[in-house]
């Protein structure tokens, strides 16, 4: 509930429309309530007094009222749609804006799918809630209050006898609405579980077959299916009890009116017309009430969604610009200094991801980072563009702590080729141009050449204009990676970060890419995470990371002599049978020669 209140801020721009909608609703209700009164007049003053003129005049009056109320209803509808859809639009935008400020740390904690649900179904649920509140949700209580007043006005004694009944009805509605909310949420949960099983089964179809687990999966599904069935049956049966219970209240009201009203009329207390009017009031009141009961799930859904939306809106970006952030720093040579850098992804973690990293990367240097899975290589390079902020220590770029720089400024000088390639729908050119939209076609091609992508791009059906489908499914992993490299090169960064970005490229192409990268480098500082030894051979320096610490640092040759871990990595990849390392080197030199010849 408190979330709904919080989202009130989104109602503010539309408060005029919302107010108007409610006013129209009030007008509508009073017109609705006039009808039974007029019918009463037809009966009492028309039929009973044999006055034809009253019957016809009142009939025409009712017709007029009914036409006016139609216009009002349309107005109310359009206004409430406007408010509802407007709020949905603003919520989507607010969420989207918020997500844009998320740092990598925030993004790691949520799945894209979850955010999509926040943006689509959750905003839709809130929109339905708003629309409902401005229409039937307010109309029903208003009608109820109005007819109550009119009933008292028509015949206080009869109304008094109906009052307890109305109270009971209201109590029933409230009771069911509150009971229903958790029930609906439970059904939704069971439905999600069911979907998960289904989804996993389709996505993991190969695995299920390979391990012949069809029967087991069937069991899993049956359990989820049964759970869901039981729960939704319960809700449906709950509803099945509610509707007749409310109806019987209306019906008892009718009986009371006939009985008590009939007896009263004997004493001349009420007229026949009044009795008929009373039954009409009862009907007018109860019909929307019944509908409102059925809308309880809209209510429950809207509440739950508001909570989830607020959770996103309340997320604090882990990396933010400091208020006096400097715009300077964009022109320095690109000297990176890590000072006692430590890093945890979250505070619950016992072992740090990085600890006590000291490293100086000189302008124009190429530093390769090598280490085991989970050693912290990617984390280390992700700290430089402030995708994450250091937990302890600091990183200096050209002498300035990067946390003092505005992220915008910092990123302008850095290009990253991430581990996982993400391409956008659009042409190949669009994708390469992503980082520098104004770049000329010549520059695009030059960048593609440097990434060894030019040839295969020309081989695509429409060359550089070939459309890349969703997530680049029409390209191989290696091709996607090369486009990502071209994209990074086009921005002419001072610092280029390659995060294991040639892993899907075959070793031969990889070699060519690195040659081309070196050729374009100039004074570019390069940080490169790699798995393969062959990738790091040409680096100015190689950093070996193990369990978050730098364990070796130096050139390939030196490390081969000095670092046991490096030797181990080397052997694991290139070790040819047994034999001295000298022999191995010979082989490699020979290999190099042969390639040249």
């Amino acid at each position: 509930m408190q979330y709904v209140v919080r989202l009130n801020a989104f109602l503010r721009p539309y408060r005029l429309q919302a107010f108007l909608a409610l006013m129209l609703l009030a007008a509508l209700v009073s017109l609705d309530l006039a009808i039974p009164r007029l019918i009463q007049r037809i009966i009492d003053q028309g039929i009973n007094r044999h006055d034809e003129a009253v019957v016809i005049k009142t009939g025409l009056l009712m017709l007029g009222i009914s036409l006016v109320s139609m216009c009002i209803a349309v107005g109310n509808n359009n206004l409430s749609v406007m408010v509802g859809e407007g709020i949905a639009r603003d919520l989507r935008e607010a969420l989207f804006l918020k997500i844009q400020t998320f740092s990598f740390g925030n993004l790691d904690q949520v799945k894209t799918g979850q955010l999509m649900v926040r943006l689509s179904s959750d905003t839709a649920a809130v929109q339905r809630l708003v629309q409902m509140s401005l229409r039937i949700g307010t109309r029903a209580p208003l009608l109820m209050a109005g007819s109550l007043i009119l009933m008292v006005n028509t015949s206080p004694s009869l109304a008094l006898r109906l009052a307890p009944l109305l109270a009971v009805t209201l109590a029933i509605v409230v009771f069911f609405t509150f009971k229903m909310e958790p029930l609906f949420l439970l059904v939704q949960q069971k439905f999600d579980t069911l979907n998960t099983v289904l989804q996993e089964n389709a996505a993991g179809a190969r695995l299920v077959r390979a391990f012949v687990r069809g029967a087991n999966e069937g069991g899993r599904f049956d359990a989820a299916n049964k759970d869901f069935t039981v729960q939704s049956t319960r809700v449906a049966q709950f509803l099945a009890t509610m509707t007749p219970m409310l109806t019987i209240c209306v019906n008892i009201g009718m009986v009371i009116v006939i009985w008590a009203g009939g007896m009263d009329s004997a004493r001349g207390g009420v007229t026949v017309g009044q009795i008929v009017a009373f039954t009409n009031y009862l009907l007018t009141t109860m019909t929307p009430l019944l509908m409102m009961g059925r809308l309880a799930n809209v209510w429950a859904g809207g509440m739950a969604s508001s909570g989830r939306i607020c959770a996103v809106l309340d997320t604090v970006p882990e990396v933010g610009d400091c208020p006096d952030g400097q715009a300077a720093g964009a022109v320095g040579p690109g000297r990176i200094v890590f000072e006692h850098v430590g890093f945890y992804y979250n505070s619950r973690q016992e072992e740090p991801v990085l600890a006590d990293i000291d490293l100086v990367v000189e302008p124009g240097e190429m530093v390769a980072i090598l280490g085991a899975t989970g050693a912290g290589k990617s984390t280390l390079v992700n700290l430089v563009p402030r995708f994450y902020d250091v937990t302890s220590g600091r990183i200096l770029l050209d002498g300035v702590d990067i946390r003092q720089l505005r992220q915008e400024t910092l990123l302008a000088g850095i290009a990253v080729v991430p581990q996982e390639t993400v391409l956008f729908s659009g042409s190949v050119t669009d994708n390469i141009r992503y980082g520098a939209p104004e770049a000329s076609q010549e520059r695009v091609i030059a960048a593609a050449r440097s990434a060894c992508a030019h040839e295969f791009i020309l081989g695509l059906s429409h060359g550089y204009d070939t459309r890349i489908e969703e997530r680049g499914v029409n390209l191989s992993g290696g091709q996607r990676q090369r486009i990502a490299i071209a994209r990074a090169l086009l921005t002419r960064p001072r610092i280029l970060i390659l995060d294991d970005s040639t892993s899907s490229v075959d070793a031969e192409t990889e070699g060519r890419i690195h040659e081309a990268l070196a050729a374009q480098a100039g004074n570019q500082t390069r940080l490169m995470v790699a798995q393969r030894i062959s990738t790091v051979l040409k680096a100015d320096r190689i950093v070996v990371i193990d369990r978050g610490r730098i364990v070796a640092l130096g050139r390939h040759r030196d490390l081969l002599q000095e670092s046991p871990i490096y030797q181990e990595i080397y052997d694991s990849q290139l070790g040819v049978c047994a034999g001295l390392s000298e022999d191995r080197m010979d082989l490699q030199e020979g290999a190099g020669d042969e390639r040249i010849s």
Partner: protein
Amino acid sequence: MSGSPRDVRAAMQPLRPGAVGRIEKARDSRHALARLLPYLKPSAAGLALVLCSIVIATASGLLGPYLMGVAIDRYIAAGIFSGIPRIAWWMFAAYLTANVFQALADWIMASVSQRSLSRLRRDLFAHMQNLPIRFFDSRPVGELMSRLTNDIDAINQAVSQNVTSLFASVLSLSGILAAMFMLNLWLALASLLVAPIMFWFTGFVARSTRQGFRDLQRQLGGLNGVMEEALSGQKVIKAFRRNESVLENFRRQNQEVYKTALRANSSALLLMPLTGVLGNFFVIVLAAFGGWLALQGLVSVGIIATFIVYGQNFIQPLRQLANMYNAIQAALAGAERIFEIIDTGAEEDDADDGLPGPPVRGHVRCEAVDFSYSPGTPVLRGMSLEARPGQMIALVGPTGAGKTTIINLLTRFYEIDKGRITIDGIDIRSIPKARLRRSLGLVLQDTFLFAGTVLENIRYGRLDATDNECIRAARLADADHFILQLPQGYQTDLSERAGNLSQGQRQLLAIARAILADPVILILDEATSSVDSRTEVRIQTALLRLMRGRTSFVIAHRLSTIRDADRVLVVDQGEIVEQGTHEELLARQGFYHHLYLSQFKGEQI
């Protein structure tokens, strides 16, 4: 062509909010309905009860207003008050009966419909277990999933909320009509006037609404596309500082959705006030015309009152009919698509279950195998290979050479076009698939983890394994060490934390799974591609131990992985171009030699 073109991430695609005002028609509603009916059959008794209850409920529901009219005319207006209590009691009894039976009908129907749906889902799922892998490979999983969930939901909505009300509505409509005609011909005729207007209105609104919602669906699809791309590429967007242009694009599309939604919803909601006014109009006609008739002495006040109550009961179902019609149409369209899947041919498994025992030695032979995923583009041509029991065969070659395809054929995920594959001399087509696959241990490149704990995921390899056996398998796969670092160790729930496992760690879990399964033949398809080389060396020892005495097939890019193979098969463009041991092939200075050299390229010492 690689054998696993599926994108597992696509499975994580959120659902398109298709439920938002989806108005959709089944191509053949009657057929879809006919297919749905058998699912109701086991509940025939319950349905009959529902039917009876609704008839009773409707009849006694109609009795109430009639008794009211009688009370007004015969007692109140006539001034005979002694009969009022009695008739009031009758009214009460009628209404009570009506509601009790209505509740009974709804109550039973809830369980009948949910149970039928449950059966439909069970059938669908059971059938999915037998669908050929080709079915899953040939469509994005995300699309399949969102379709399934939306369709099931649409049927669920319609069945749980609309079917009984539709039935009750139709029944009470006809009952009211009959009662009205019995009570007063003229008033009944006047009331009937309203019905066609109502039908015309709802039809008109529904038609104009449908186009609006279709547009809205399209715009929403566009917006979803923009959002999804932005969200999944958020890190890149940030790195390249493109937030502004992404935002602008989003704003534009968001505004489009807003405008379209405004139009669609405004016209859809027109139905309510229109029918509402028509309802009033109905009452007015009854009151005014009835009043006039009463003056002529053709009708009594009590009957007018009865008619007004009937009128309200008459309008309500009419109002709902249009909405119900749409919901039911959407459900039928959903049902149609679900039946489409159920009608998709299952994997053929015509092997004689009785004859051969499971492969025990693991002697694999492929003889002149031809295969293509789609006719006309052969993937394998005259492929022959042999793996003797206990041998380790490495498959090497460039991406797209057909290595994974060989695995797809061995496991009979796909059936060969020509030639034959035998294990221990038996054609694999005559081995029941379950038995064949149980003897194969498969570690795939795309590692799939299920929602559940780490332990449960490992146990997937052999369901009756004890905790200790699972942990031992994890140790052998060198996964133990990172698992223990997870917050709850082996009990860590992967549904929440799978995102935090690296690809390499996932692969280690998959290897543990295969180790636990203890198969006769082991197949590793790039099983260690994302594991760093030192860890790989450690697993390698475990794997080698595991492979001892088993036939194994290993696909790898890293040549270091395959040095230990008994035989290396070099595959290129669907054919085996070279084979021999690592040393022999190096000495031959051919294709393999070339591949091997490129590993060290760039090193100039």
